[in-house]
């Protein structure tokens, strides 16, 4: 009996270490409920999760496709979303929009600091918005010398792709947080 169990573990270890690349032929379909189903090698998954492995440095490459049910086992990895068919790309991009919400700041209208909080009024790729950060915490972190991630009091995340692309005036407003 124990031999059998050991085999299960062997198998698990095998599964854990194997990396599977999802071929272009995999069929991703949008479900009525707004999720993504997958047909791969004759197997059908009602709903799959899609996770970015490099959300900042390579948002559209190396996407882990995982089962929704149970432990969320990895089914495979999409190496490059742009290499997938047009429809698949659209379905998956929509799904990613649903699970990842990190507005990218393109313009800074004002930053006002008051009693330990800084109030931002900005334009993002998701529209204009206002948010507040706690100046006492590490709300602003640097991904590189020119790239920032700002976490507001609600734990929303905002990104500034390139600080140098901002105007001199906007940069000066940001200086306090750099």
């Amino acid at each position, binding site marked *: 009996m124990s031999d059998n169990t050991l085999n299960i573990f062997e198998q698990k270890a095998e599964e854990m270490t194997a990396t599977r690349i999802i071929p272009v032929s995999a069929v991703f379909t949008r479900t*009525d409920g707004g999720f993504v189903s997958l047909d791969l090698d004759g197997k059908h998954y*009602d709903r799959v999760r899609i996770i970015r492995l490099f*959300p900042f440095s390579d948002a559209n490459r190396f996407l882990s496709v995982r089962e929704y049910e149970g432990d969320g086992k990895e089914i495979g990895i999409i190496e490059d979303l742009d290499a997938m068919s047009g429809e698949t790309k659209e379905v998956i991009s929509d799904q990613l*929009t649903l*699970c990842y919400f990190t507005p990218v700041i393109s313009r800074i209208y004002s930053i006002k600091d008051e009693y*330990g909080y800084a109030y931002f009024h900005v334009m993002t790729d*998701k529209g204009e918005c206002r948010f507040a950060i*706690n100046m*006492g915490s590490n709300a602003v972190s640097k991904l590189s010398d020119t790239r920032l991630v700002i976490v507001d009091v609600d734990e929303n995340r905002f990104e500034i792709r390139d600080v140098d692309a901002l105007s001199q005036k906007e940069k000066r407003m940001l200086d306090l947080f750099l």
Partner: protein
Amino acid sequence: MILRYDIPHNAESMVELSEGEKIYYAVPIDIDEKGNWTDDSFFVVTTSKLFIIRGKKKTEINIADLDKATAEPGIGGGILTVRQGDSHKVLAHYSSRHLGRYAYVARGINILISGRFEEVISNEYEKTCPICGRAIPGTKRCPKCSGEGGFLSMFVKMAGPYKKDFLGVFLIMVLVAVTTLLNPEVQKHLINDVLSGNGSLKTAYALLALMFTFSASIVVLNIMKSNASARLGSKIAADLRRQLFEKYQKLPLSFIGDRRPGELLNRITQDTRFISDFMADVFCNLFAILFIFIWDIVFMMVLNIKLALLTFILVPFVSALMITFRKTIGRIFHLQYKKNDDVASELQDVISGMRVVKTYGKEKDESERFKSVSGIFADIQKKNERFWAMFDFLVNVLMGMGLVIVVYFGGLDVFNYKMTPGELYQFIAYTLLLFQYIGWLGRLPREISRLTSSLERIYDVLAQDVPEESDTVKDIDIKGEITFDHATFGYKSYRPVLEDINAVVKPGEMIGIVGASGTGKSTLINLLMRLYETDDGRILVDGTDMKDISRKSYHSQLGVVLQETFLFSGTIIDNIRFSKPDATTEEIIRAAKLANAHDFICALPDGYNTYVGEKGYTLSGGERQRIAIARAILPDPRILILDEATASLDTESEFMIQKALERLTKGKTTFAIAHRLSTLKNADRIMVIDGHHIAEIGTHSELLDRKGIYYNLYTAQIQF
């Protein structure tokens, strides 16, 4: 947390209510279907329906058709989904601002699905004020809107208990101001009456003596003033520190857990220190300087109004210059400070990771990296110093110009006999005083805002509501029956760790808890220790809801041994006695013997008086653990909790401690978490926790027969 928003009228009118139907929850949907911000969408839950309103569009769903609602947290936001048979459906997409809210709403929908009509209420605080939109610093109400914030009210709150001391400091300050202002007046007389007039030597001596007295009393008064305000400052700081510490002890762990430990530490150490510094450096001069400043201006105008106005023209220039430069200075020095931080953390990184750097042979790369960080810092420093030198120079030039104006026009007036030389001298003295204090006053707003935020952080803690025990709590003698009744809990409302835990544990039973890391074993124990309270459901002790038992009575009958043993700085006997301060020496020795600790304690040169803790005698892991066990069993608890009590020990120590524990757990309701199943061989039943639930529960052999998770774990472990 608000679960029922007042939604705009046109949106609300779209929700058509039938007879007896009523709105339970209404929350904004702040992200539209394309993933952009929106402010015209709402999610409304009534007694029987869900409404999704997007602008003029409306979708209705009957709650009766649904099986389950889930608030799924994502990255920077989340989605509310419903399940209907096998099909999942997204209903709303929202940002992190509403993560917690939707978790409660989902819980509320599930209650409605199950056919009950209870309304879920959230006790969490809002993070931004719904009225003014400002961030709320962890308090229940917005300090601005409730009128509690603001410098003056904060300051009054702080100063309230020290009225007498403040009055004393204030009086000295007025005296300082008066003497400072009178000195030039005497000097005027010296020049007018003696030097340019026909005064006698006697008058000269008298005036000189007066001047000397004034100068001397300024010095003495200043010392008294600094002394008094420094003393007052440290008194206030000490009182605040004590209050904060007491509050920390009373606050629930979730409050501590929500904040970084450093932040809480800072509030006690840095914020209170800032208050005493403020009192010593700023406050002690505050009234004196304001007083001098105002009278200075008045005297100047009285002496020579034309000259005074001429001088004042310069004031706005000097102040404007100072303010802009100060802003720039603040900015560039902040930058320098940050870069300095970078250098420090780079160093810290490399030095503490020296072994790794060396083993991978990366010394050169690290040197290069450090060189560049350090270079950037040096550049900024160089630039800042240059700027600083310029600034000083400019300010001095401007002030010098002010003096030149005064001397030139004043001199003309003196030649025209419109002004006496003594008055001119007096006027120059006042001008110098004026410029001297402009700079100081310019610094004031920043100091005050810093003080306000320190005070705010302190009062944020002090104003925190501590959940008071209700008057109905009672002391009970615990027999040891524990019942989990639909217990649900999560550290964050939107991420449950334990869901719907149901089990009955008999008095004296030993329960082994197993499961993978992160499944909630320790959380279950935290609930048993009453460090947190269940969000939903109850835990009953001998049939009484845990919340109805007084904490004191419950904790005195509870013994805990954790994996990481914490010993306070103090002697061994102090540490054992911690759990029962009135224990006799005999009882302590008995507990130590039961815990197998007595023998090694005897071998120590200082016996039970051995000093342990951070700076004390270094005990091995096994020895510390045995002291912790002695501490746990000293009050003879009815409930014993062992969280990986032996996991960090070597095999021999573990065996010895297991032996000790076997004797102790008899007759006591025991919960033991263990990874190594062999340590649970005495357990009456095993509880397997998996996926937030109790996956399996039963005796060792029952679970083996089930061939489930426990069986797999067990067979895997005996193979190794």
